[in-house]
């Protein structure tokens, strides 16, 4: 089976705030040949991972364990300080549903705006518009400005656009809990359908039941490192053991 995403020796640092005096001092020291690095904390360390075509990978870990950062490295949003990320195919990150949508534009205009932000062409969005409207159940309001929508309606529109895509590699960052219970169920079904279509999926979630059901492998993150990689049963049982 071919590899579609590979992370090799990844290190990512987040810079800490530095005073101008300390910055200047560091630069002067460097000028005189003394090594010194900018203050930082390590978000990801020694990440090595190969994901094969067709795999569904679940990522779990405590809050702050760098699960979302790992997805952002995979999506190419963050460039690693060290190491390389290699990819074969299109990649799409589902995160922050409805990002960049505008209150003054109509629902229909926002479908095109959000779709283009997610990297889709006009042709793709034209062909998907009817499907998106149908899925969001917003037929009667689709030509009204977004400011007239309730927060639930906005979420429905956002997730309808976000889930209309069929990328080669799909990254999902805890977006399964949007909308009312009925729509939430519908969204989860749609995302499962996306997983079938996309073949390769990396999903961050706290829903262990769902992960156990859909994942081929799971990763447990701890303090920016991969603590365990293994079968869902193995990783979840280890996580429960550690977390008590």
């Amino acid at each position, binding site marked *: 089976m*071919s*590899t*579609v995403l*590979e992370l090799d020796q990844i290190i*990512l*640092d*987040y*810079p800490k705030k530095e005073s101008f005096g300390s910055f200047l001092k560091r630069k002067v020291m460097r000028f005189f040949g003394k090594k010194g690095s900018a203050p930082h904390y390590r*978000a990801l360390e020694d990440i090595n991972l190969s994901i094969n075509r067709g795999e569904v990978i679940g990522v779990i870990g405590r809050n702050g364990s760098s699960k979302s950062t790992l997805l*952002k490295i995979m*999506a*190419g*949003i*963050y*460039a690693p300080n060290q190491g*390389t*990320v*290699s*990819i*074969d*195919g*299109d*990649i799409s*990150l589902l*995160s*922050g549903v409805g*990002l*960049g949508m*505008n209150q*003054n*534009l109509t629902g229909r*205009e926002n479908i*095109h*705006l959000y779709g*283009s*932000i*997610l*990297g889709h*062409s*006009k042709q793709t969005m034209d062909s998907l518009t009817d499907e998106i409207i149908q899925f969001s159940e917003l037929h009667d309001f689709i030509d009204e400005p977004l400011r007239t929508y309730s927060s639930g309606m906005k979420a429905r529109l956002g997730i309808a656009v976000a889930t209309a895509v069929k990328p*080669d590699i799909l990254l999902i960052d805890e977006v399964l809990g949007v909308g009312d219970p009925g729509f939430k169920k519908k969204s989860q079904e749609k995302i499962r359908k996306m997983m079938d279509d996309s*073949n390769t999926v990396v999903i961050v979630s706290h829903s262990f039941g769902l992960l156990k059901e859909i994942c081929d492998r799971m990763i447990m993150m701890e303090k920016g490192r991969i603590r365990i990689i293994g079968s869902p049963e193995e990783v979840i049982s280890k996580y429960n053991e550690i977390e008590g």
Partner: protein
Amino acid sequence: MKVGALRPMHPEFSIVKSPFTLMAAVSSNLYLVKNLVRRDLNHKYKNAILGYVWTILEPALLASVYYVLFIIIANHSEPNYPMYVLLGVIGWGMFSRILNGTVNSLSNNSGMIKQTNIPMQIYSLSLATTQFVITCLSLLIVIPFMIHLEITPTANLWMLPLSIFALMLTSWGFGLIFASANVVFPDLAHLFRFITKAGFFVSPVMWTYEMLVVRAGDTFYFDIAMLNPVVIPLTCMRYAIDGTTPEFEFVHVLYAALFPVLSYIIGSIIFQKYSRRVVTSL
């Protein structure tokens, strides 16, 4: 599904390729640029009762103020002067808004940058395009002036789009040079706000190229003033409307032509090298 070899997510930086890589990313995201421009124009005008009329009304109101100030109160001998000032204000306004907006483009879009992998130059390019559209609409106010002053359009009109493009490319390119640094040193945004405020007075907005030639034509200060890259584009905007044939020195024309191109090339190289690195600082 595409099947092929693994390729690096962040290709190796190349000085030579940078200007082309930047443009390639822009050309493959034109649909996104169009949608972002529409969003920004809507945000600016849709809630106002007069909507897009404000793009013309604002310079029209300014023009009436200049007319009262320069023709009625100051009794300026040049009847075209209020129109010159208006053209200067429109051109300089676009230049300063694109420059400040580009310098702030990463900081102002941090939310989207941290959630999507849109090429980051798209944010500043959509802002520059929005300002370009607003400028084109604002320039319609010149038509009543031309009718009132009995100015007939000449072949010199070709200089208008070229001058606007030169101003746009200079401000975008120059802004790209500092956009990444502004994320780490936000003081730069304050510095650029000051530079554009001061630049209003050292650029031919309230004065004209002819005034500069008369007052300082034979001095060292003339060459210093001509280092300002907007002098020739702003003057050409005026010449395009009133039909004056430009009589600049060749070296100044060459400088004015090279400055936008070099700004873009240097801006694209620095932006390509540093913009992705500063995302963790946003």
